[in-house]
């Protein structure tokens, strides 16, 4: 496996870096402080082809591979983790499952719009009583009069307020657990779907995180994604890709922290010299750089496996848990290097610190990632 990006990968990386530096860095603090949804920047991201990166060109996407995808996500998250979350959900949690399990008709109906930014996608899995235990979900899907009737409440839906297309998981069969679940493509214009409470959050504050309320929501038969009872499998396989996306986001946040801290350590003078000359600071930076590199390589490894169509649940979980804990650790250390300044909104460190935390929680907490890794390990031995 090559760990050096190709010429094309490097150019995609530098293009997205330029986009993020021009369009996101200058507004990231304002988006965060005012909980403002980055609509204009999303339009420009869609123009560049960032909303459907791995969608083939025949469905209006950019036709990129997973390596290009994770390189781009790192660059977006380095500038604005919230922006990346919106892009990441659209790509990895909505476009990907439609591409893998959608009918030809579903692909033609939804992918071009999702890739061009004409529609935005969201992922509705979590419920008030099913978080880590996602397969115990209770939203019901009843087949009646030639259509599906969905009822229940989904929570913590990223982009819930703005999304046009919701990938909803509901229990359609009598069986408990994963095998009783089906996946549905629910348009916001369908009768019976509404946006509920919007959460006030610690970080990634430019994203909306809302309830999606389904009150006898009528969904046409042709909007079932995959087969009846296949939803649990779709949800779990989709999350493998989502975890790689979150790992790339965490790598981006960790890199932002390290870049800021390294620059500050060279410039901040105390006791007559830059603080970067003190061993306590040097060793911290060295450790942060080493962890960052390791997190990035794990992420690239998982992306490479997924690109090749090989099993990657274990590697995706490893990348996600290691990268997210690296982001949190690095943010913690970077705030410390900045001291009091790091605690203020005059510097971006406190935002990185707040943004980093979500990566240890969503798309499977760190504990769930360890559960996935251990299950995989013990099943093999």
């Amino acid at each position, binding site marked *: 496996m090559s760990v050096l990006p190709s*010429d*094309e990968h*490097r*150019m*995609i990386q530098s*293009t997205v870096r*330029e*986009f993020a530096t021009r369009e996101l860095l200058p507004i990231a603090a304002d988006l965060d402080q005012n909980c403002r949804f980055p609509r204009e920047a999303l339009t420009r991201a869609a*123009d*560049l*082809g*960032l909303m459907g*990166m791995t969608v083939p*060109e025949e469905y209006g*996407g*950019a*036709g*990129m591979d997973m390596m*290009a995808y994770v390189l*781009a996500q790192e660059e977006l998250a380095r500038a604005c983790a919230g922006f990346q979350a919106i892009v990441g959900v659209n790509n990895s949690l909505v476009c990907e499952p439609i591409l893998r399990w959608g009918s030809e008709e579903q692909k033609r109906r939804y992918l071009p719009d999702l890739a061009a930014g004409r529609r935005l996608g969201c992922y509705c899995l979590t419920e008030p009583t099913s978080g880590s235990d996602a397969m115990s979900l209770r939203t019901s899907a009843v087949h009646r009069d030639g259509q599906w009737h969905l009822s229940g409440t989904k929570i913590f839906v990223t982009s819930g307020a703005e999304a046009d297309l919701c990938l909803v998981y509901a229990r359609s069969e009598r069986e408990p657990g994963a095998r009783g679940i089906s996946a549905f493509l629910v348009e916001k214009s369908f009768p019976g779907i509404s946006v509920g409470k919007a959460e006030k959050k610690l970080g990634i504050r430019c994203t909306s995180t809302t309830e999606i309320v389904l009150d006898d929501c009528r969904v046409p038969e042709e909007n079932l994604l995959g087969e009846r009872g296949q939803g649990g499998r779709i949800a779990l396989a989709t999350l493998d890709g989502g975890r790689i996306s979150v790992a790339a986001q965490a790598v981006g946040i960790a890199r932002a922290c390290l870049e800021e801290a390294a620059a500050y350590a060279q410039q901040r003078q105390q006791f007559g010299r830059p603080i970067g000359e003190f061993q306590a600071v040097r060793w911290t930076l060295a450790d942060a750089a080493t962890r960052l590199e390791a997190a990035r390589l794990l992420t690239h490894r998982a992306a490479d496996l997924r690109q090749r169509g090989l099993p990657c649940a274990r590697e995706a979980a490893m990348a996600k848990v290691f990268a997210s804990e690296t982001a949190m650790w690095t943010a913690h250390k970077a705030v410390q290097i900045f001291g009091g300044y790091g605690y203020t909104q005059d510097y971006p460190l406190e935002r990185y610190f707040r943004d980093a935390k979500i990566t240890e929680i969503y798309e499977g907490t760190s504990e769930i990632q360890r559960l996935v890794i251990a299950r995989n390990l013990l099943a093999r031995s």
Partner: protein
Amino acid sequence: MNVVVCLKQVVDPELPAKDFAMDPGTQRQVREGRPLVISTYDENALEVALQLKDASGAGVKVLTLGAQAAVGDAIRLALAMGADEAVVVDDALAPERAGAEKARMLAAAIRRMGSVDLILTGCESADWVERVVAPLLAEDLGVACVTFVSRIESRDGAPVVRRMVEDGHHLVEVRLPAVLSITSDESNRPRLPKVKDIMAAKRKPVQTWAPADLVLTATSDPASGVEVRQVVVPERTSRCEFLTGEPPELVEALVQRLRDQKLL
């Protein structure tokens, strides 16, 4: 309309100062191990050409001098941004050649291309800032030249270019073919390539010519009498001066100092 954009690859001007170095032997900037990018104004020139392509379907070809291995990134980026094809004059000595010599080589390459209506260059390169290539290129080709152009407009079908001057701009009617040197302006901010065009760029044609393929115009002195004797990195010094007195005199003295320094 056929447009040729001349691109130069330079060491990234945003390189941290600590990584900047001069080679005392060649009196040239050390390029090895430094990131190379398209010279700043050359990217504006490419953007102007691509806008012509968007508006009227002009064909856009990029031309560069340099060792093939070193210019790959610039060519790939230009093709990804939207240029149709590229010509590389595979000349490892390019970074060491004086502006006049490069202009002669570019002119020879452009003659070899055949029918060309418009040749665009940056108004100056980000490393040497000589500003000689465009006029010398036009001279060699025997065509018109307008420098410091920010936009190309059209009046009754004839191209009219906006030439930036100190206190505004001139509108200049141009007879084609012509060489224009392009300066930056809010209208020609270089576009970012679309992700799918980055992959498509791989399939666009790139021709490589050897310097020996070019028929240069005769001249008695290939370096045109330019010799670089020494290049020094200026030393930065700062001096602080306190003025004393009452406010009216202070203001007068301050203004005088600023005038002496040619800052006013």
